[in-house]
């Protein structure tokens, strides 16, 4: 039986930082996609806001988000491509966020659902955990994925890495 969890590509941010992390030319030969991201950004705060784009589009996204910071839990919704926060410049040094994005049936003819688990850490009172339910209301197959700032200006720090995996169900 075939191994089905296959690494498609990895991006590692170099010393100059990067405005975004992008996977292009994603083959249509899998059932689901998974992005695993370890990242830190230059935003002057504990965390920076992260967004996702499919096929270079930031339109037709919606989401439900639950988050907890160690003292309280809350939930928000939005018609946007915000997917949670990653560690920012004011968090404990050498600390990177951990993020998994699962996109089911990415070549299907219907709208695309995605699930996100995300944590930031920090050797202080504030750190965050996110659960995100996302939808891209577009019938096109996903051929590219971009991770970038959401309504902020920052860059991914050196040593941030992301790997795209493909999962086949047969």
């Amino acid at each position: 039986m075939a191994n089905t969890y296959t690494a498609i590509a990895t991006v590692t941010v170099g010393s100059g930082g990067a405005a975004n992390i992008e996977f292009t030319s994603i083959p249509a030969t899998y059932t689901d996609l998974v992005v695993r991201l370890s990242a830190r950004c230059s935003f002057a705060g504990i965390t920076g806001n992260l967004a996702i784009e499919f096929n270079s589009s930031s339109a037709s996204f919606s989401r439900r988000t639950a988050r907890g910071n160690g003292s309280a839990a809350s939930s928000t919704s939005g018609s946007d491509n915000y997917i949670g926060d990653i560690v920012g410049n004011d968090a404990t040094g050498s600390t990177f966020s951990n993020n998994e994005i699962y996109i089911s049936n990415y070549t299907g003819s219907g709208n695309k659902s995605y699930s996100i688990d995300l944590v930031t850490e920090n050797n202080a009172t504030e750190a965050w955990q996110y659960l995100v339910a996302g939808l891209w209301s577009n019938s096109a197959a996903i051929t590219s994925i971009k991770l970038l700032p959401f309504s902020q200006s920052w860059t991914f720090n050196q040593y941030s890495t992301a790997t795209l995996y493909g999962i086949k169900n047969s």
Partner: protein
Amino acid sequence: MPATYEPIATVNVTNVTTTTFNSLGSYTDIIVVAGGLTRGTANSVFMRFNSDTGSNYSYTQLVGNGSTASSSRSSNQTGIMVAAGTTGLSSTPTMFICQIQNFSNANTYKTILSRDTDSNGATEAFVGLWRNTNAITSITVYTGGDFTGGTLSLYGIKAA
């Protein structure tokens, strides 16, 4: 490196209320992925093992519905909820990913983790317990009403 994440089976659940996987293979953990799920009515999705319909299951859920976050607990249930009730229209398909750890261990009760994703309803996380030490030999996924579309895929993970 040995293959460790392998597809076991996939079924289309259109017009189906109950799906049972009987051949689980020789793995350490099992992953159940539901993709593109649509439902005509807001029925939750549950899981049970080895056809045990007794009140031997419990689960805890964490829910964010877009305005509030909450948590609840259900004990002595006849199945573990793995996805909460939602209409799951064709325009807003839902998905869930359920992990069943160490499913063939004959010494421990069995635990699961599930993540339910419904951008039109809520984002949810479930933890569940089946109070039985038997190895899991079958997995049944069921809901109170037919799915109108979607697939259930089963994957096996081998420890080294």
